[in-house]
């Protein structure tokens, strides 16, 4: 019985070592990620870029297609999330206005299909 306890303790020790190595020392790293996985501040800055270009071009279809790079959520949700982040992170008023413009216009946007690449 004593040997069994030691055997199980050895397994537990090995398990702990394996987890420490796999989670802390050498965790799985994702390279070649997609924009969907970007951190909130990067996502918001990307949306801000789209908003800046949208303000200049006025092409809502194209803006929505550019936002689709960030995931399968509806573009209006992506823009609204960026606006929320911008407000909480203290973006400049002009940037907030641009995000607000994009988010507001996307609320009534209907996809038309086709079009140019981002």
């Amino acid at each position, binding site marked *: 019985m004593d040997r069994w306890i030691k055997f199980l303790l050895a397994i537990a020790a090995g*398990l702990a070592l394996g987890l420490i190595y*796999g989670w802390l020392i050498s965790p799985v790293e994702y390279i070649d990620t997609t924009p969907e996985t970007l951190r909130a501040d990067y996502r918001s800055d990307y949306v801000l870029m789209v908003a800046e270009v949208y303000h200049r071009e006025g092409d809502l279809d194209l803006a929505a297609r550019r936002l689709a790079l960030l995931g399968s959520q509806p573009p209006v949700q992506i823009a609204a999330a960026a606006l929320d982040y911008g407000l909480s992170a203290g973006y400049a008023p002009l940037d907030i206005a641009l995000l607000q413009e994009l988010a507001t216009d996307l609320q009534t946007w209907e996809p038309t299909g086709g079009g140019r*690449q981002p």
Partner: protein
Amino acid sequence: MSADEKKSQRGPWYLLFGLAIGLGLGLLISWGIAPVTYTDTAPVSLQTQFKDQYRLMIARAYQANGDVGRAQSRLALLGDPDPGAALLAQADRLLAAGDPDQAAAALLALAEALGEPVVYPTAVATSTPTAAATAPPGGRPTPTRRPTSTPTAVFSPTPRPTPTPTPTLGAYFTVIVQEEVCNPALTPGLLQIEVQDASRQPIAGMEIIVTWPGGQERLFTGLKPELGNGYADFRMAPGVPYAVRLLPDSVPAASDLRAPTCIADGSSFTGGLRLLLRQP
């Protein structure tokens, strides 16, 4: 030999065996079943094609806001060793592929703003834009998992955007000069456009839409730097009315532009027009 003696002869191997089993289970869990997930990645870890799209968006945003500092901060997120060279390389790739969306001009304009020596190819200036038919990128590739000891991308600092885009966004351009050009040495029907900001400085990289009944063409200023950074031109057909609009303006700055008929030395020929557009 008694049972106790046999056990003592086995030694501690069973402990090592248990340790190995545990280690294997641990790695299986930490690498396979429940690996560390990266949901908060940085642009530096993006796949190349997405980096290209991100970089292009930076260049387009620069065209919109004119803020080089902000563009530089954003480019730094991509981790390119030489951001200017990366912009040029991407523009080269686009031009080699025909540049159907005329994106190269945006990349080149930003590269130039970063101090890169840019030579604008004439193909960019004179090519007729196509009607945009490329489909968006297809299915998203699965991230590649790779064990490594340096997950630095997750913890890299985020440069905060600089606060001020250009203050004149949205101000309409107005026609300062519109005059006929009767010079038989010039291309017949040449529409010469110069774009200046409020301080009378030429603006490179401005997107101009020339429309006429049944068609339109997109031009960019600065593609013929020998004629000025704010210069762009277009060849008009005789008798056709044209309108010129500068993005982001929603209304044309000039309309009903027609190639004039000029007379010199007793013979007539098709002349051109010169437009000077300025932001108020």
